[in-house]
C-alpha cells in the first residue's frame, strides 16, 4: 500500500473509531460532531469531483447542499402536517422516509446542477467561479424572501426522518448511516476516478485542447461531472438537514460554499480522501478553537493561511508527497 492509502485507511478508522469510543464513554455529543464531519466530508467528496478532478472551482455548491436540505425539509414538513405538497394535476404527498427523501434530494439537486451547469460551463476560470457564485446567491435570496417554507426562519422538523430497521434518533445509528453512505460514495468516486469518464474528465482539466483533438467534448464531460457532483452534495445536504432536524437559507449562503471548498483544500485537492480529512480537521478546529477565545476566527484564518502557503497539495500532499500517477 502507498503512504496515501495508509492515510486514507487511517482517516476512516479515526472517523469510525471516535464515535465508537464516544459511545463507550457516554459522550453522545462527540458522536454528533463525528456525524457532522462525515456529512461535510460527503459534501466535499461531491464537490471534489467537479473541483479536484474536473478543475471546476464552483463557489456555488451551497446551492445544491441547500436544495438537498430543503428537499428533506419540504417533504418532511408536509408529512408532519399531513398536507400534500400538491394535489393537482396529481397528488404528491410528503414523506418521512429517508430513502425517498435522499432520492428526491439527489434528483432535484442534479436538475439544479444541470440548469446551472449548462449556463455556467460556457465560462471558465474566474468567470466560472463568479457565475456559480451568482447562481448560488440567486437561490439564497430566493429562499430568504420566499415565505412558503419559512423564509429566513427556515423549517423545523420535530423528529428525525426514519430509515427502515433503524432508530435514527439514536446518535450512533444515524452516524452509522451517514458513515456507510460516505463509504459507498467514496467507492463510487474511486470507480469514477478510474473509469473512462474519470480519465477524460481529468485530462480535460489538464489540457482542454488535447481532449478536443481526440474527439471528446470537455463541455459534456464537465457538465456530467457537475451534475453528479451536485447530486452528491445535495444528498449531503439532506443528511445535514436531518442531523439538525432543521433547514434554513444559511445552508445556501456563499460562506457555506467557501467552507466546502476549505474541506477540500485542507485535505488536498483531487485526492479521494481530501475532503474526509479536511472536514474532520475543520470540525476539530471549530470545536477546540471555539473554546479558546471569542476571537477564534483569527486563529482559524492563520491556520488556513499556513496550509495554503506552506502545505501545497493539502495535508495529504504534505504527508504523502506528490500524487502517484495511476497505472
Amino acid at each position: 500500500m502507498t503512504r496515501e492509502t495508509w492515510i486514507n485507511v487511517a482517516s476512516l478508522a479515526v472517523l469510525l473509531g471516535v464515535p465508537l469510543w464516544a459511545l463507550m464513554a457516554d459522550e453522545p455529543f462527540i458522536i454528533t460532531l463525528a456525524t457532522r464531519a462525515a456529512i461535510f466530508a460527503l459534501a466535499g467528496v461531491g464537490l471534489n469531483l467537479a473541483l479536484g478532478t474536473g478543475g471546476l472551482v464552483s463557489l456555488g455548491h451551497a446551492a445544491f447542499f441547500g436544495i438537498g436540505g430543503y428537499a428533506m425539509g419540504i417533504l418532511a414538513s408536509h408529512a408532519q402536517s399531513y398536507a400534500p405538497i400538491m394535489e393537482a394535476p396529481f397528488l404528491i404527498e410528503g414523506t418521512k422516509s429517508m430513502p425517498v427523501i435522499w432520492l428526491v434530494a439527489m434528483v432535484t439537486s442534479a436538475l439544479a446542477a444541470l440548469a446551472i451547469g449548462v449556463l455556467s460551463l460556457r465560462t471558465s476560470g474566474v468567470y466560472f467561479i463568479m457565475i456559480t457564485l451568482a447562481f448560488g446567491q440567486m437561490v439564497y435570496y430566493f429562499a430568504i424572501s420566499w415565505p412558503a417554507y419559512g423564509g429566513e426562519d427556515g423549517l423545523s422538523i420535530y423528529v428525525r426522518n426514519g430509515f427502515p430497521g433503524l432508530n435514527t434518533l439514536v446518535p450512533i445509528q444515524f452516524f452509522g448511516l451517514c458513515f456507510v453512505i460516505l463509504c459507498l460514495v467514496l467507492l463510487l468516486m474511486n470507480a469514477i476516478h478510474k473509469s473512462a469518464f474519470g480519465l477524460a474528465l481529468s485530462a480535460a482539466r489538464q489540457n482542454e485542447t488535447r481532449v478536443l483533438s481526440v474527439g471528446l467534448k470537455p463541455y459534456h464531460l464537465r457538465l456530467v461531472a457537475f451534475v453528479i457532483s451536485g447530486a452528491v452534495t445535495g444528498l449531503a445536504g439532506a443528511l445535514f438537514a436531518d442531523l439538525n432536524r432543521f433547514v434554513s437559507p444559511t445552508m445556501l449562503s456563499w460562506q457555506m460554499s467557501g467552507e466546502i471548498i476549505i474541506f477540500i483544500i485542507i485535505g488536498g485537492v483531487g485526492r479521494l480522501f481530501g475532503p474526509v480529512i479536511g472536514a474532520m480537521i475543520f470540525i476539530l478546529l471549530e470545536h477546540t478553537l471555539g473554546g479558546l477565545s471569542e476571537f477564534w476566527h483569527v486563529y482559524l484564518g492563520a491556520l488556513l493561511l499556513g496550509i495554503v502557503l506552506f502545505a501545497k497539495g493539502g495535508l495529504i500532499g504534505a504527508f504523502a508527497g506528490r500524487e502517484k500517477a495511476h497505472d
Partner: protein
Amino acid sequence: MTILLFIEQMLNGLQFGVMLFLMSAGLTLVFGVMGLINLAHGSLYMIGAFAAAAVAAATGSFVLALMASLAAAALAGALIELTIIRRLYDRDHLDQVLATFALILIFSEGTRWMFGSFPLFLDVPKVLSGPVTLPGGIQFPAYRLSIIVIGLLVAGGMFALINRTRVGIRIRAGEADREMIAALGVDIAKLYTFVFALGAALAGFAGALVGAIQSVQVGMGEPVLILAFVVIVIGGIGSIKGAFVGALLVGFTDTMGRILLPQIFALFLEPSSAVTVGSALASMLIYILMAGVLVFRPRGLYGVA
C-alpha cells in the same frame, strides 16, 4: 411614477453605481495586473471606514478622516502584499481564494478585537449634511451629490493614470506580459506592491465615503465585496472601463429593480403577493443580470479572451 421621481431614482442609481465603481476599481486592477482574486478587498474597505471613524472621532475633521482611510488601507494593503499576497501570484485561483478568505477572517475578528462589537460613528461633514435642490425641484442629498462628483473624478484619474502616465504604461505592460516588463528592467515586485496598495487605498477610501452614510461595522465589507465582484465580472475582469460600465449597470439595475418590480407585478397580482414576488425578484436581479451577461459574453463586456 412622475418624471421627476424617475429622474431622482436615476440619480440614485448613478450614485450607487459610482459608489460601486470606487469599490471595484482596485479589485479589477489587482486582478488585471497580477492575476490575483482578492477576497480580502472587502476587509480593506472596512479598514478604511474604521480608520476614518477613529480619526473623525479624535479630530472632528472629515478631511483628515478621509486621508486616514487612504493611508490606513494603503498601509494594510502594502503590508499584506509584502508578507502574504506576493506568494500567491503564481498560485492557482483556488489557493488565492482560500488564502484571501483566511485574511477576511483575520481582519474581521482582529478589527472586532480592537474596536469592539458595536458599530462606530462616522457622520457626513456639516456642510454636506442636508439636501440641495436641483433644477426641476428635485431634492437630493448634498453628500450623495458629492459622492457622484468624487467618484467621477476618481474614475477620470484612474483612466489618466492608466493611459497617460509612466506607471500606467508599466501597469498595462504588466497586464500584457509579465516577463516582458521584467525584461524591460522594471522592478516588478515594487510595481506589484504599488498597484496592490493603490487598489487597497481606493477600497479604503470608498469605505470611508460610504461609511459616513451607512453603518461602520465589522462585516461591512463582505456584501460589498460580492457586489464588487458582480461589477467587475460583468465589465470584464481587468478592465477599468468595464468596471465603470459594470458599476453603473448594476447601480441602475438594482435601484430601478427595487422600485419598479413590485409595481410591475402589482399590475397582474394582488398587492401583497406583488410586493413579495417583486421584492424577491429584485433581490436576485443583479445576479440574474450577471449570469445573463456571462452566458452571452463569457468574458464580460470588455474582457479580453
